[in-house]
């Protein structure tokens, strides 16, 4: 019986290729979109999930509260992990990682730069599981051990075995003891170069081991099997009171400190902390994409249901005959579900092919490097089975029950009637499709508007034609090398197209450091953590900061470099200063706080991305070491290619051996919104898919409607109806559906879009144009599709139409 059912289902598809194409093609497109999104979501959720102890590892967050301000760090003080592990038996162990930032290794006289360098303790590779190309978890056990990535090993040593090879860093010899595969797993830790913490100079180790006031380590705890991290959290306050607070009390600290435990698998999605690892995911976006996947599959299933039931007249006779022959309803239902399962299987087969073809493009779209091996995972097969169940059985069951109810009386000539049944369900489903398409359309336009706004909004400083050149960082005590950096500015300014230059620690728009400064209040001095920018005297003018009161830094005034500060308007407002030029900030000192006089107030500007609200900001003119991280150059407009080449040439003369790294500020700021950019591209792609699927469903349904009304249209034509009259006639029912769908979809879309926008500190507003745009596009597609069928029907032979039953 099963064979017969599948055979007839196959022959039914062959008989009507257009129906088969629309059905299988539409399902295949919907399933493909779902599978791609599933791969993306799985990739996001896989971060750090592979570690054997993942469920027992928690990271320590440090939270400081100063009055109404709080600072939340992804790092903790150096002694935290070892002290906790010593004190609490429910901890199996722990590990910590100190960020070094960019690290330069030398091998055979050539420098090799890694963006991410760390000191890691010996427990690190025993806590976290990586894939080793050479060596293993013991690779940091010796003080001079070094672990690098396979990519760096290939650059430095080619195909040679790197184990035992010696490299230099800041005059120190290190031995390559292990190589890890950088692409094998997803982890929140950007992989680079790992130095053994055992190699820390003893004075540094001693100083750090006792320093509870300096947060510098990513700190992880491993709980024993069965231990409860939630219960353990309650012990952290006592721990802070015992070890951390005493070191702050000598400094007049009057805030509060808290350590929070963060499950390892949540770290990738946490974007709320400062001093945290980069490249973070966004759980809201992952959820959003999962919802999109469900909506797309829903549309594909709606198409399938609508086309199956609309074409029911063709199967009515067969159903009636089978009933006459004695088939029971459940046998007929099983037959049709078998047919829909076959269609689902064919669609899955086509979609697997489409997924393979689309993976590279999807990887580019989403910014992920996804390999086809993911398709062979057990989870993927499970998803396919789920899709088969949903599409073949669930989506197939409505048409199955609908078709199986046809009464056998239909066979006798007086009983032949339209077997199409009530249109209500099909109309509701079509309306739902329209609603989903409109929702996606509005969403896409809003995301685009916000992205455009982020990229083009005035950040309060001039970012055009501004080049940021990364300066090398000499050893901290090498004052000669630091002094030598100053000449770079002078030398590069000799180029005629360089209109201005200034040193700054951080690139404007990307944020700076954070210091805890003190502010005088009637109740006494209050600690205020605040963002700071350290720069030379030329910097404010170079980036076009607008002075509101007072003056900028003056190199002729020696005290400006030691004890002057420029603040922004938000600082004046937050601190309640009536006369800011008579006020001061204070840098906490061991015994005496250093006074920093306010010499100027600048208009608020976005010193960091528009994701973050503007806070009170302090600008310092500091000594070259702390203000020389980046050299900003204002270039004249023109042939940037030639300008960059000439600058690089001059750089090589002035800084021989130093890497030339320069980025235009426009580009680096645009990269701040990479997540939104990815969201826009992915959302647009799936919104287009939604429209394609809706159009396919509309095409099938319009074809059925035109066919059903062939005789009516023939009669109308005989009586004088024009093409326009017929077009209006057929479009009317779909346009009414579209109107109702808009009434339902737009409020939901407005709510969702507003909620999303409010997640940004600064955002564009919702506009009528977003809704109008989505409606116009959907309307156009509807009218074009339906009108085409109207045109075809009008041009058919009216005599044949009048005979049509």
């Amino acid at each position, binding site marked *: 019986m099963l064979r017969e059912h599948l055979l007839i289902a196959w022959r039914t598809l062959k008989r009507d290729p257009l129906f088969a194409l629309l059905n299988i093609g539409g399902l295949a497109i919907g399933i493909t979109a779902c599978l791609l999104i599933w791969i993306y979501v799985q990739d996001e959720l896989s971060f750090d999930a592979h570690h054997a102890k993942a469920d027992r590892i928690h990271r320590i967050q440090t939270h400081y509260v100063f009055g109404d301000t709080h600072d939340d760090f992804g790092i903790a003080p150096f002694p935290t992990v070892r002290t906790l592990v010593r004190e609490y038996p429910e901890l199996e162990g722990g590990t910590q990682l100190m960020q070094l930032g960019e690290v330069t290794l030398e091998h055979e006289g050539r420098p090799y730069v890694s963006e991410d360098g760390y000191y890691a303790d010996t427990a690190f590779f025993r806590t976290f599981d990586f894939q080793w190309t050479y060596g293993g978890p013991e690779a940091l056990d010796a003080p001079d051990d070094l672990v690098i990535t396979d990519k760096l090993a290939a650059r430095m040593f080619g195909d040679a075995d790197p184990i035992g090879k010696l490299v230099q860093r800041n005059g120190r010899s290190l031995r390559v003891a292990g190589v890890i595969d950088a692409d094998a797993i997803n982890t929140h830790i950007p992989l680079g170069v790992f130095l053994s913490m055992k190699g820390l100079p003893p004075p540094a180790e001693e100083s750090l081991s006792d320093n509870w006031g300096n947060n510098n380590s990513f700190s992880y705890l491993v709980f024993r099997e069965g231990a409860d991290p939630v219960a353990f959290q309650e012990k952290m306050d006592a721990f802070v009171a015992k070890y951390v607070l005493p070191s702050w009390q000598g400094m007049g600290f009057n805030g509060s400190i808290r350590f929070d435990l963060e499950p390892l698998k949540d770290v990738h999605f946490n974007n709320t902390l400062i001093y945290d690892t980069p490249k973070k995911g966004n759980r809201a976006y992952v959820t959003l994409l999962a919802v999109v996947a469900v909506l797309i599959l829903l549309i594909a299933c709606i198409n399938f249901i609508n086309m199956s039931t609309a074409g029911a007249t063709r199967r009515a006779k*067969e159903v009636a005959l089978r009933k006459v*022959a004695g088939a029971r309803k459940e046998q007929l239902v099983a037959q049709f579900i078998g047919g829909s399962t076959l269609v689902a299987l064919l669609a899955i087969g086509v979609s697997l092919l489409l997924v393979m073809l689309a993976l590279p493009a999807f990887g580019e779209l989403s910014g992920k490097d996804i390999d086809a091996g993911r398709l062979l995972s057990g989870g993927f097969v499970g998803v396919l089975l789920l899709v088969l169940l949903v599409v073949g059985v669930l989506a197939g069951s409505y048409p199955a029950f609908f078709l199986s109810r046809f009464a056998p009386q239909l066979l*006798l000539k007086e009983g032949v009637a339209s077997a199409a049944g009530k249109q209500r369900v099909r109309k509701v489903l079509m309306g739902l499709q329209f609603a989903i398409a409109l929702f996606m359309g509005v969403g896409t336009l809003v995301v685009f508007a916000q992205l455009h706004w982020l990229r083009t909004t005035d950040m309060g400083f001039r970012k055009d034609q501004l080049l940021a050149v990364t300066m090398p960082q000499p050893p901290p005590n090498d004052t000669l090398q630091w002094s030598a950096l100053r000449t770079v500015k002078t030398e590069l300014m000799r180029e005629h197209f360089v209109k201005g230059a200034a040193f700054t620690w951080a690139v404007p728009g990307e944020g700076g450091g954070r210091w805890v400064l003190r502010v005088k209040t009637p109740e006494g001095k209050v600690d205020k953590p605040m963002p700071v920018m350290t720069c030379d005297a030329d910097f404010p003018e170079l980036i076009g900061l607008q002075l509101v009161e007072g003056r900028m830094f003056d190199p002729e005034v020696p005290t400006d470099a030691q004890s002057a500060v420029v603040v922004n308007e938000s600082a004046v407002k937050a601190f309640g200063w009536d006369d800011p030029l008579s006020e001061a900030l204070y840098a906490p000192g061991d015994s005496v706080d250093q006074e920093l006089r306010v010499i100027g107030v600048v208009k608020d500007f976005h010193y960091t991305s528009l994701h973050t609200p503007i806070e009170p900001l302090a600008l310092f003119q500091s000594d070259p070491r702390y203000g020389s991280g980046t050299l900003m150059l204002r270039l004249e407009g023109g042939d940037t290619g030639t300008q960059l080449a000439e600058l690089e040439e001059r750089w090589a003369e002035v800084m021989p051996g130093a890497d030339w790294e320069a980025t235009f500020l426009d580009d680096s700021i645009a990269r701040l919104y990479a997540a939104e950019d990815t969201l826009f591209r992915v959302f647009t792609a799936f919104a287009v898919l939604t429209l394609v699927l809706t159009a396919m469903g509309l095409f099938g349904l319009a074809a059925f409607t035109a066919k059903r009304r062939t005789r009516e249209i023939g009669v109308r034509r005989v009586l004088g109806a024009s093409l326009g009259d017929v077009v209006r006639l057929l479009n009317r029912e779909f346009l009414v559906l579209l109107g109702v769908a808009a009434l339902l979809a737009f409020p939901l879309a407005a709510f969702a879009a507003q909620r999303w926008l409010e997640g940004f500190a600064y955002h564009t507003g919702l506009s009528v144009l977003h809704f109008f745009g989505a409606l116009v596009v959907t309307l156009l597609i509807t009218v074009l599709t339906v009108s085409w069928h109207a045109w075809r029907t009008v041009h058919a032979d009216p005599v044949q139409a009048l005979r049509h039953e």
Partner: protein
Amino acid sequence: MSLIQTIALSKTYRTDEVETTALDAVDITIGAGEFVAIMGPSGCGKSTLLNILGLLDNPTSGQYLLNGTDVSGHTERQRAGLRKQLLGFVFQSFNLIDELSVAENIELPLVYTGMKAAERRERVNAAMERMHIGHRAKHFPQQLSGGQQQRVAVARAVVNEPALILADEPTGNLDSAHGEEVMQLLTGLNEAGTTIVMVTHSLRDAGFAKRTIQLLDGRLAEAVAATELL
């Protein structure tokens, strides 16, 4: 005992606005082995009567006794079971399934009886031979002429050896030569013992039957005449 007996059989169709009496207190009796034609103008209730006799529908009131059993209140499940066992159908527009081959179409009534495949094949072959259509076993309906399609339909009607065949205008879509052929087939089946009830407009086809029942406005024509006389 009669094979078919109806007592005051009535069928009324109701919508929100309209009530239509398709059959009005019809009493008929058909014995086993009879060949009966039911005639009457369009809309007189012939197809409604055939629907009820063929267990495709239930009467609104009255009784329908099939082989002595009152089946008028049977559920669709019960009617389907009886159809499988006792009935075969021949339709005016053949009603073959286009996606099935000739052999598969003929096999259809056997598929739902739970019969094993080998035995089904045997019966199908026998039916095809009887109707001289075996050489077209693998062909599809759209590859056959009207006459050939109706022969396939007749083969399908007899494959499960029913006690009763119901034919609805069996020659309505055929030319006279093919129509004659089909009527000869039905006559042959009747002579072999199968009861045949046939709805027809054609006096010529009715001539093959041994008895004719006339319907008019949902009632037996004699009843109408008698009423008018009154």
